[in-house]
């Protein structure tokens, strides 16, 4: 009946779904991601509507964006998505140490991505592409910035989870949290796929 009988014992297969609380958490998080899809979709829609509104004398998307930086950022985030998969795989095998290591790698890569993004924004502002410059710039910074804020939140969240797991170990309470954080991290990467496609690459073409 109770969730507690498992604690400190052998963890079941897919520990994140072993308790009702865990199943609720995973399902609720999937639905939340459905809502996040609409949230980012609206930001994309606003960007698409306003992307050509650059204004006189301001740098256009084509002049502004430097694909090498974007490519590096993409590579970093994609790799971090892979390392978080490895972490969840270790979780399913009840291998705590490898899981922690993979999570630390994930967080480090996430922080690296954030650093690049900050550098990129700093560079754009110097090029005369500030938040208030034009409708294009406002919608660009809002879309990419919302994504960056999600990355930052994910970095902080997973760090807290790492600390928790080190203290409490892997059990039926921590497992769903880690699993859900993994889903969140993949979702962030999925959003980035659309950002580099629609914002950067299409901006370079158009």
């Amino acid at each position: 009946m109770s969730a507690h009988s498992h604690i400190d014992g052998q963890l079941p297969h897919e520990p994140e779904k072993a308790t009702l609380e865990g199943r609720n958490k995973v399902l609720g998080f999937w639905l939340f991601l459905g809502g996040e899809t609409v949230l980012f979709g609206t930001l994309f829609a606003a960007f698409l509507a306003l992307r050509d509104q650059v204004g006189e004398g301001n740098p256009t998307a084509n002049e502004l964006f430097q694909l090498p930086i974007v490519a590096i950022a993409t590579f970093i985030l994609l790799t971090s998505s892979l390392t978080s998969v490895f972490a969840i795989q270790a979780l399913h095998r009840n291998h705590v140490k490898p899981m922690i290591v993979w999570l630390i790698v994930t967080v480090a890569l996430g922080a690296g991505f954030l650093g690049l993004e900050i550098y990129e924004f700093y560079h754009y502002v110097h090029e005369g592409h500030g938040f208030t410059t034009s409708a294009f710039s406002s919608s660009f910074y809002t879309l990419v910035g919302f994504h960056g804020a999600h990355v930052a939140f994910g970095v902080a969240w997973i760090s807290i989870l790492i600390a928790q797991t080190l203290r409490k170990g892997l059990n039926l309470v921590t497992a769903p949290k880690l699993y859900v954080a993994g889903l969140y991290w993949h979702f962030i990467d999925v959003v980035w796929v659309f950002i580099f496609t629609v914002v950067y690459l299409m901006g370079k073409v158009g």
Partner: protein
Amino acid sequence: MAHAHAVKRYSGLMDWLTTVDHKKIGILYLIAGGFFFLIGGLEAILIRIQLWQPLNDFISETTYNELLTMHGTTMIFLAAMPILFALMNAIVPLQIGARDVAFPFLNALGFWTFFFGGLLLNISWFVGSVPDAGWTSYLPLASPTYSDGHGVDFYVIGLQIAGIGTLIGGINFLVTIINMRAPGMSFMRMPMFTWAIFITSALILFAFPALTVGLAALMFDRLFAANFFEVGNGGNAVLWEHIFWIFGHPEVYILILPAFGVISEVISTFSRKRLFGYSSMVFATVLIGFLGFMVWAHHMFTTGLGPVANALFSIATMLIAVPTGIKIFNWLFTMWGGSIRFTAANLFGIGFIPTFVMGGVTGVMLAAAPADYQYHDSYFVVAHFHYVIVGGLVLGIFAGLHYWWPKMFGRMLNEGLGKLTFWTFYIGFHLTFFVQHFLGLLGMPRRIYTYQDNLGFNNMNLISTIGAILMGVGTIIFLVNIVVTAMRPKDAPNDPWEDGRTLEWTISSPAPEYNFAQTPLVRGYDAYWKEKMDGNSGMTPAEPIGPIHMPSPSILPLFMSIGLFIAGFGFMFSNYIIGAVGLLVTFGCMFLRSIIDDHGFHIEPEELEDKGVKA
């Protein structure tokens, strides 16, 4: 697991501030939503007093704009939705045979964020700069250029905070209904009210994020000089209309679908008949929810989207009349041949049907894009949406409150006063809004603070004002009823209407904190009625009596919401230190919630017997 962790149990005010019990949260929603309903109602009556005669100077044009904006915003976001959340919190877990909702902590957080968002919005009255750009806050009127001062800031930030609570509630109820139904309760055995809440929650999940982005964009425009809607810098004002209505049209179905659910329960119970066409009712609800996302631009026919878009949205809108019509006929056929009891709840239920049909018919009229050019921004539109929102939703809420009051509070509302509430409110409603159709057709525009003499508007506006006052009287009678009822002893039996069909009527009134001592086994649609018809005195339990796990109360949801409230003020007045402090409080509470494991506590079988549960 015989002995669980000792958990602090609070009493008095602290109990209410820390509660994670869905029934208590339901009551909190009802109190807060009811309070905002009274404020919104007062604003409505002030508006009607201003309009009772031509060239009246009861209030200034500025105040009129503020009252108009706050009336709409308050009624939709702070009164109607919370009272629906009150009903869904109080009833849905009971109807599906669950001990709790999926996320009790988040449930409390949802309430407190709504409450502090609403509080922030209404504090604008005391600060002296009130939102005045209409409840839709169209640009460029709501832009920093044309609305300087902090009025629209209150709107943007208040709704943003309240919206978080709504989104949380939507996810919570989706997961609750998917994962926590009692054994045997398949989807097609769920009560109609639960179905309605299920679809409503899905609409909330997919509509509210659009509002979040819209409000964030408007906030960036206002506070940080962004250019989303600043036409001079390449922004687009129509974009706001789109985003607002992509959220806004599902929002009106978020409001009306729960009312459909309530009416289905009330009419079926008081006709002593199974709901006619249950599966078509479910189908119609799902279809309305789906179509609700494809009709938003019918609010924008006169914007100039062009004939293709207008034709598409016109047809899609008219399509919605089909599932709605299915529902209307199903209710009529449920009553047909039933032994109908005209209780106060059922009066509201039956009164709902013709009123809502009228609102629906004017809806189809408005859906004809060419005709809409004539109706647009006239009192005809005002009459239409009050027929569907007040005549639909508010009558549904009254029906639900009279019907479920004993289950929420353990006392039956006074039937005589209830019927008096119905007749005054119902007659007052039709007096107020029926004439407004004709005012609109005569050419009276909406959102004006006064009108000239000799335009033929005078008598109908006077009638409308008298009706509004009568609606106010009806509401006061309802309040009197609550007070009178509260002074009587708690004596409602499990099944006070004696014709209860669903699981909530199998347990005591009010429900114990664990809801079901033993999870019931559901053997069919209308689970309790089926047992009654098979000659059983109650439900067959699906499990032996055992310890019941309960979540522990927590003060964190309150502080998280207070943090957002403080941060809202900080950012509004460009005091970023205070803003950061507020966010720090919120994130700090989230951190605490993450690291402190909530083991909850157990209610042991011996305690259940002490509380008089039959073994």
